[in-house]
């Protein structure tokens, strides 16, 4: 990665982090409605994968979707407006936190049904193959989500049709409040995917560079017609399952420890500054810029136009006849 790429990646990582930190603060003021799941801690996964993608590539996300949206290029203000339920939000307030989408960016939606995105992304990959496109489709799913059967159906179909499809499994060790060890017979999630007949690798999802390299390989393979693959990336979830989760199942120290030892941002910073690829001043400038962007996003969200009751009826059908 050259200097600009690295700066871009840092910018994105910081944006994802600050978006969640800010969302959390604003959520606590009661302004954001609904079940909100923060991505903080897992940024290197979304960014490491999506830095390889263009607007033409398609992704489908999960209930914990803010990070994927931002990594895929969604406008943070338009996202914040959506969290606030404004008609200027990306989905006009119809979707909210669990259903953010931006088709102009190839972001086909966060999805509140665990595991449901995988088969749909298979369809996006099929469209690429059928139209002779060079774009790929990526679905994200959590470790818990890999226990939903249709994920395996999607994997098998992608292999059978040799589609340009990447399955990214985000392993944060938890499915809501249940530890993965209590939910998964074989802790080796890559092995489960590989058994469906495709290359599957596991990487440290806290290490942006590890994710970036592995994703690059999988995506390049898919682009040149080499078929689907799976990438398992492990990284911690810094906050509760959803905002409001009191996290009685893990201690404050445990969480603090995660923050100290498994935070992708310090890791990234350490590497690029040690290598001398980016300077502290450059990073600080990005941080300041992101802070401004977040202030701006929240200000816009608070001032955004509100829906009126009649809006309920729009967008059910293209034409109901």
């Amino acid at each position, binding site marked *: 990665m050259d200097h600009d790429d690295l700066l871009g990646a840092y910018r994105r990582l910081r944006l994802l982090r600050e978006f969640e930190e800010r969302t959390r603060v604003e959520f606590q003021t009661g302004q954001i409605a609904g079940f909100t799941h923060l991505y903080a801690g897992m940024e290197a996964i979304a960014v490491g994968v999506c830095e390889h993608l263009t607007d033409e590539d*398609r992704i*489908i996300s999960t209930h914990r979707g803010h990070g994927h949206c931002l990594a895929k290029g969604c406008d943070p203000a338009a996202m914040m407006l959506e969290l606030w339920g404004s008609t200027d*939000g*990306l*989905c*006009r*307030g*119809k*979707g909210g936190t669990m*259903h953010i*989408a*931006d*088709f102009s960016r190839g972001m*086909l*939606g966060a*999805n509140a*049904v665990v595991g*449901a995105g*995988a*088969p*749909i*992304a*298979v*369809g*996006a*990959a*099929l*469209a*690429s193959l*059928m*139209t002779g496109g060079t774009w790929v*489709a990526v679905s994200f799913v959590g470790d818990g989500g890999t226990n939903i*059967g*249709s994920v395996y*159906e*999607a994997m*098998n*179909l992608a292999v*059978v*049709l040799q589609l340009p499809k990447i399955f990214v499994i985000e392993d944060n060790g938890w499915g809501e409040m249940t530890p993965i060890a209590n939910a998964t017979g074989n802790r080796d999630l890559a092995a489960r995917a590989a058994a469906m007949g495709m290359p599957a690798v596991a990487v440290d999802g806290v290490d942006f560079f590890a994710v970036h390299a592995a994703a690059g390989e999988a995506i390049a393979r898919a682009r040149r017609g080499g078929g689907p693959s799976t990438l398992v990336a492990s990284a911690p979830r810094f906050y509760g399952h959803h905002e409001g989760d009191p996290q009685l199942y893990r201690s404050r120290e445990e969480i603090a420890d995660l923050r100290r030892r498994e935070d992708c941002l310090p890791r990234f910073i350490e590497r690029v500054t040690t290598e001398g690829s980016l300077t502290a001043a450059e990073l600080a400038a990005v941080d300041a810029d992101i802070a401004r962007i977040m202030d701006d996003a929240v200000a816009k969200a608070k001032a955004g136009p509100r829906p009126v009751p009649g809006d309920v009826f*729009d*967008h*059910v*059908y*293209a*034409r*109901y*006849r």
Partner: protein
Amino acid sequence: MTIKSMRDALNEALHHEFERDPLVFLIGEDVGGFEKDGQPVEIGGVFGVSKGLYRKYGRKRVIDTPISEAAIIGAASGAALCGMRPIAEIMFADLTAVCFDQIVNQIAKFRYMFGGQCACPVVIRMTTGGGRNAGAQHSQTFYPIFTSFPGLKIAVPSNAYDAKGLLISAIRDEDPVLFFEPKVLYTEKCEVPDEAYAIPFGEAAMPREGEDVTLVAFGQSVNWAVQAADELRKTRGIRCDVIDPRTPSPLDEETILESVAATGRLVVIDESPPRCGLTADIAALVADKGFRDLKAPIKTVTAPHTPVPQARELERAYLPNPRRIIAAVEEVLA
């Protein structure tokens, strides 16, 4: 114009649309075929509806899949979100139960959840209903259930002519359409034009007209309603409007309300069980908007509140029939 079975009429519709639009494709179990020793072996669907497509268009547009209904529907909807025009085949309507989420929580809601950003023009074809002694898990209708989901359109043809025209409309529609093919009607024949034609959604057919009683029926029940109407006319001089909405959603409310305005009497017929079904739906419509016209209780003729039994005598007793419809008409005229 020649006499064709519903199977052949549907097959023609597929051929027309495959030819017209290169983005149209078919995906499902056993819908296509495979190569064996370099030769194509065609399957063409378990019920033969997609005959000839694999030979003509190959595996690229006629995609046999694993037995993975959730993946089939996901593959169709994801492709539709990217501009394709997929037709997915699910062998039996009952089996939508294994991919129900992909239909009702995903396809039905994409456009709305995403604030109108996208269309999802998928057609899901499936066989529906009883009459083949296929037992409790392969004989259900399921179209009333899907009718309850906003975001979906529902079509249920009752004859070969409508089947062709409705399927062509379904494929051309910008919205997701669930297309139900009553399996006992595949071999039923009528006159069907050779060329492509589209029957608009939301416009009922009226196979019989009369001023005494309104009969509204869906799918294969339409044929029983017509038989009942003919019998009533011949033997008793009672004249019935027989209304076949053809698309439960969007529903042609006007035709039903206008008919009841004239007759004042309504019998609704469907082979689904009675609770929360289309017969209740139509009855509720008329009990509200047509109440002032009603001269008698609204009667419904449905299956009982039981699963579908398998044995011949039992399934026969389970399904509605002209005799039961005639009895209901007599009640509303009493």
